[in-house]
């Protein structure tokens, strides 16, 4: 199982490195969105609740771009059939794809979060740092799990680019709630206060529950 996941993961990352389809697009989208927010809100700097909100909404919509593209190559070029023929545990694809999406999210956040700190954030990003990283990690995990499940659902439908976001957004609302509430004290003006532990717990629990559900249901999506 682990070897299957490793092999699939290696393939995904190799393809991404060679074609550069998702991550650069997501990063660029995030930076552009920050600029749009500057004009839409007519503000030079944001902090606290507003900053947390802008950050998480932008991350969410950029993630949607990644989710849309996650299974497209497999669906269009027969990757599913090839995988189904192999004598391996089918959940390996779920884990590999979720890890791939996680990698994409972390990669584009390396660009997006500093860009946010530079363009829009009032208080210093460095002060928020190690805690913010933890919040982002937990949030990304949830987005990765739900994103993979929704992507697998949507890719076989006719209006896949439309249904993917429609399905994903309500399911991701609790993650936005948890992420934004947890980040908001970190990005507060003045010195950042500690993250309320309950939000980390919420995010962690949500990730766990949906991870298990996705694991249980994914097989049914892959059948022919």
């Amino acid at each position: 199982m682990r070897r299957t996941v490793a092999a699939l993961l290696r393939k995904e990352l190799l393809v991404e490195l060679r074609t550069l389809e998702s991550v650069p697009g997501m990063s660029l989208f995030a930076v552009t969105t920050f600029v749009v927010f500057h004009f839409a809100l007519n503000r030079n700097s944001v902090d606290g609740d507003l900053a947390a909100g802008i950050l998480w909404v932008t991350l969410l919509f950029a993630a949607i771009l990644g989710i849309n593209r996650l299974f497209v190559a497999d669906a269009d070029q027969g990757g599913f059939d090839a995988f189904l023929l192999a004598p391996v545990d089918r959940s390996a694809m779920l884990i590999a794809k979720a890890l791939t999406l996680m990698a994409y999210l972390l990669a584009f956040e390396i660009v997006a979060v500093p860009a946010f700190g530079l363009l829009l954030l009032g208080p210093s990003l460095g002060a928020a740092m190690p805690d913010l990283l933890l919040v982002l990690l937990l949030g990304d995990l949830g987005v990765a799990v739900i994103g993979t499940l929704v992507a697998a659902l949507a890719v076989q439908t006719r209006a896949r680019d439309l249904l993917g976001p429609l399905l994903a957004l309500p399911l991701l609302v609790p993650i936005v709630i948890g992420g934004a509430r947890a980040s908001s004290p970190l990005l507060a003006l003045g010195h950042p206060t500690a993250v309320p532990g309950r939000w980390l717990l919420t995010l962690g629990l949500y990730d766990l529950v949906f991870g298990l559900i996705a694991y249980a249901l994914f097989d049914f999506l892959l059948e022919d």
Partner: protein
Amino acid sequence: MYGKGLRALSIATVAAFAVAFGLVFFYAPLDAEQGFLQKIFYLHVPLAIIALCGFVIGGLLAIQHLRTRDSRWDMRSYVAIHMSLIFAVATLITGSIWAKGSWGHWWAWDEPTLVSFLIVFLLYATYQPLRFAIEDPERQSRYASVFAITAGAFVPMNFIAVRLSTAYLHPRVLGSTSNLPGSMGLTFVVCLIAMALLYATLYKYELTAKHTRSQVRALRRKLIGETGMAPRPRSAAPTLHPTSTPATSTAAGASR
């Protein structure tokens, strides 16, 4: 045979509603804070509870479908979610009317249950478009069941998350059911039962109608033959295979 208990169920529903409305308007005391406006509570909250239960039941029925691969479970899951969606619309409308009466605006962001409900509604509103976008009937049923289970698990988690997020801001203003005086409590329970009966009746009604339609189509197929039938149009509703005809994918469909 879906229509069997339908008459008894309908009569029970009407009776329950008669008793419930009688209690609401002639027995339950006026609320100290909100006065007469609070009477909406007896309609709005049972609607919400039944809708949410319906969504979760839809998920449970979907689990059965994935376990047994019997398309009848998928039909039941579909109808359950469909009915719950209608109840959810009614919940949102009555909640909105209540908000307007209480505070003067049509929506209240600081009411966590209403907000959670909106999110759940938006999620389930994608159920039919999802089904409609998948043409192959078997795959449509399978994917819909996966969605129904995921969404069913999402319902409680969503309520917890939203409740947590507003806990510190405002106390719960709209109808906390934990400290209802006895007479209000009784009225509420009766309304809840009436609403549950309404759901069960409409659910059975819908299943019977779909089954009847599929039987008529099966009969038509038998009389006209395969060539005379118009091709089944794309639909979001699952196909029922009536037990008297061999099950094929173009068998009598129950499309709306």
